[in-house]
């Protein structure tokens, strides 16, 4: 049901610009006001959330040991530097691998029951599907976002030309098919099928899991529809998008409604982003189990929110409580402390 609600909601979202631009001709609202508001909301609330995370207390380092830590004898027990880093550089490498290669997903395992003569046995096996399709989806999305820079920059930077060339190197059709367009849909459909097909994952999947998937799928499909089927006027669109980034907003004539649907869905994605699970984008950099070296054994850890407590020597203690100790008959190192300090 959660999946169905999300799907219906995305359908409703598509209808809004379809009628808003197609019937009511609110081009300025859907082409200028909404995208600019969406960028503002995305920026401000993302930063607010990151700062709020940054202000929360940092605990004692959590050494998630996916490998051998630096031991007393590194010759005998070789340290696994990238899984169990002991200094800053090794931690940076662990973070780069995590962010760029999703190593945590690589360790995903699947659990199954096997019937044997002596009853059922639990078996664990490596499961790389999630890792593979997650990589496919995220990198396709990255390439697609970078390719879109052609609409926001003039002159167009060289790497955008390079991406366009490599992405369309199969030279299928005109305009050429981009591989990333196909692969992002394949990746998204797998991530969706995984939630729907596996009963265990389906049980824990919420509307907030399905909705981003359907929303990004709708963004991708509306973009594909625009490029390969509706065939929109790219030069008019560039005039509009350049108008946004040069702060001279202007709506050129002759832009197909499919463009406004695409922009509306992207705006919804941007506005939804800071309040959703999609904040794993900045969040991955702040994973406490990944971004701190395992150096608890050779660095003194000062709890950062401790009050400033000065050490108290026994001499000072005896001075403070001398009269009471003398009264109770306790021995004193310095007999002078038995007398009450003179009143000023």
């Amino acid at each position: 049901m959660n999946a169905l609600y999300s799907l219906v909601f995305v359908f409703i979202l598509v209808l809004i610009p379809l009628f808003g631009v197609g019937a009511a001709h609110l081009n300025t609202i859907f082409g200028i006001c909404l995208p600019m508001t969406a960028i503002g909301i995305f920026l401000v609330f993302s930063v607010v959330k990151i700062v709020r995370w940054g202000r929360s207390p940092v605990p004692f380092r959590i050494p998630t040991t996916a490998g051998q830590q630096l031991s007393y004898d590194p010759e005998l027990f070789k340290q696994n530097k990238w899984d169990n880093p002991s200094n800053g550089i090794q931690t940076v490498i662990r973070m780069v691998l995590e962010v760029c290669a999703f190593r945590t997903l690589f360790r995903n395992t699947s659990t199954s029951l096997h019937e044997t003569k002596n009853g059922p046995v639990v078996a664990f096996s490596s499961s790389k599907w999630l890792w593979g399709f997650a990589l496919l989806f995220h990198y396709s999305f990255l390439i697609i976002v970078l390719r879109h820079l052609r609409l926001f920059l003039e002159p167009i930077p060289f790497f955008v030309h390079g991406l366009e060339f490599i992405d369309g190197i199969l030279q299928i059709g005109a305009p050429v098919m981009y591989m990333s367009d196909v692969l992002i849909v394949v990746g998204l459909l797998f991530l969706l099928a995984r939630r729907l097909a596996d009963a265990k994952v389906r049980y824990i999947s919420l509307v907030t899991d399905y909705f981003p998937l359907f929303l990004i799928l709708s963004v991708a499909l509306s973009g594909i529809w625009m490029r390969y089927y509706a065939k929109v006027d790219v030069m008019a669109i560039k005039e509009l998008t350049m108008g946004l980034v040069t702060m001279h907003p202007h709506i050129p004539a002759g832009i197909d409604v499919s463009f406004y649907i695409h922009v509306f869905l992207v705006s919804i994605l941007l506005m939804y982003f800071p309040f959703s699970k999609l904040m794993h984008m900045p969040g991955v950099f702040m994973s406490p189990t990944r971004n701190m070296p395992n150096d608890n054994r050779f660095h003194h850890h000062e709890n950062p929110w401790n009050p400033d407590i000065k050490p108290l020597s026994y001499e000072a203690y005896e001075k403070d409580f001398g009269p009471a100790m003398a009264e109770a008959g306790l021995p004193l190192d310095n007999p002078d402390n038995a007398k009450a300090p003179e009143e000023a």
Partner: protein
Amino acid sequence: MHYGGKIIIGIVIFVGLLLSPFVFNVGKAYKQPELKLPANEKKCVESLEFMRTKHMQLLNEWRDWALRDGKRVYVNHEGKEFEISLQNTCMKCHKSKADFCDKCHNDAGVSPYCWDCHIQPEGLK
């Protein structure tokens, strides 16, 4: 804020990347390129709107029809007949790749592979 310095650097990079298109375009204005239209011909193979958005589809179909099916005559929506040929039909009026094709293709960041086989009308440099 613990590790505040690193977090603030991260935020600055994030915001900077997102706003970079705005920064690069400060004070600029963008206009669609003006095309050099043929002097002695007012009507293209199809309507202006069709050519603006779907010329690549037409050219792709022409390539298939001419070279794979051997079909050399195209009948447009008004019933007028044209020879299916980039060099002899399109380039008869649009005499320069640099003054016509490249104008929009450069701004749109696309490089069609027409010229892998064809020679541009102004000749090779």
